[in-house]
C-alpha cells in the first residue's frame, strides 16, 4: 500500500535561516506529489506540486521542492524562513487512477525570532 513518511514531527528554525522538510513515499511508480501548508485554524493551502518534467519545482511564498526518484523523496526547501511561515506542513502523494490522495502525518514548523 502507498505510504508517505514525514520523519520530522517538529522542527524549529531561526528567522532568516534555511529550511528543509523531508518527505519520502512508498509506491511503485512515480506518483503526483504535493506540499500543503496549514496555519492554525485554517484549511490546507497548496504550496506546490510535481507531476512530471523538471524535478525542481517552484511554489508560492518562496518555497521549492526537489523530486529525487532514486530516493523516493520530495523534500521542501526555503532559503530564508519568515516568522509567518510557522505552520504545519503536509506532504501528499497521489498515484493517479482510482487511488486516494494520501497525506503524511505533517511537520510542525516553529520559527524563532
Amino acid at each position, binding site marked *: 500500500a502507498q505510504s508517505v513518511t514525514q520523519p520530522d514531527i517538529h522542527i524549529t528554525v531561526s528567522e532568516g535561516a534555511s529550511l528543509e522538510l523531508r518527505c519520502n513515499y512508498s509506491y511503485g511508480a512515480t506518483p503526483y506529489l504535493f506540499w500543503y501548508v496549514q496555519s492554525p485554524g485554517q*484549511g490546507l493551502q497548496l504550496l506546490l506540486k510535481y507531476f512530471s518534467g523538471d524535478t525542481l519545482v517552484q511554489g508560492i511564498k518562496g518555497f521549492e521542492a526537489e523530486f529525487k526518484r532514486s530516493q523516493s523523496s520530495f523534500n521542501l526547501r526555503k532559503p530564508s524562513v519568515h516568522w509567518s511561515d510557522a505552520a504545519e506542513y503536509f506532504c501528499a502523494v497521489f498515484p493517479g487512477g482510482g487511488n486516494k490522495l494520501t497525506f503524511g*502525518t505533517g511537520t510542525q514548523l516553529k520559527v524563532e525570532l
Partner: protein
Amino acid sequence: EAGVAQSPRYKIIEKRQSVAFWCNPISGHATLYWYQQILGQGPKLLIQFQNNGVVDDSQLPKDRFSAERLKGVDSTLKIQPAKLEDSAVYLCASSLGVAGGETDTQYFGPGTRLTVL
C-alpha cells in the same frame, strides 16, 4: 476566483447528537472530497464524489456518517449519532476531475472544527 466554502467553522455538540456540515466547491469542479483530520494527523479521505455520484466511500463509517451531493454542486456531510472520537476537523476539497494530471489537484476549504462532549 472564490475558493471552497464550508460552514459552520466551529461546532460543539454532545455525544449522541446529530450534526451536519455544508460545502460549496470551486465553481466548475466536478469532484468533491470530504476528509477527516484528527488532531496530530494528516487528513483522511471519507468520501469522494464525481458530479453527484459516489466514487469512493470505503472509509466512511456508514453506520453513523452520511453524505450527499445533490445536483452535483453543494454537498452535506452528516453524523448521527456523534461519538467522542468524531471530534476532528472536517475538510472539504474539490478538483476539476480525476482524469489525471493537473485536474487532480485538490483545493481545500477552511474546515469545520467539531468538538463532541
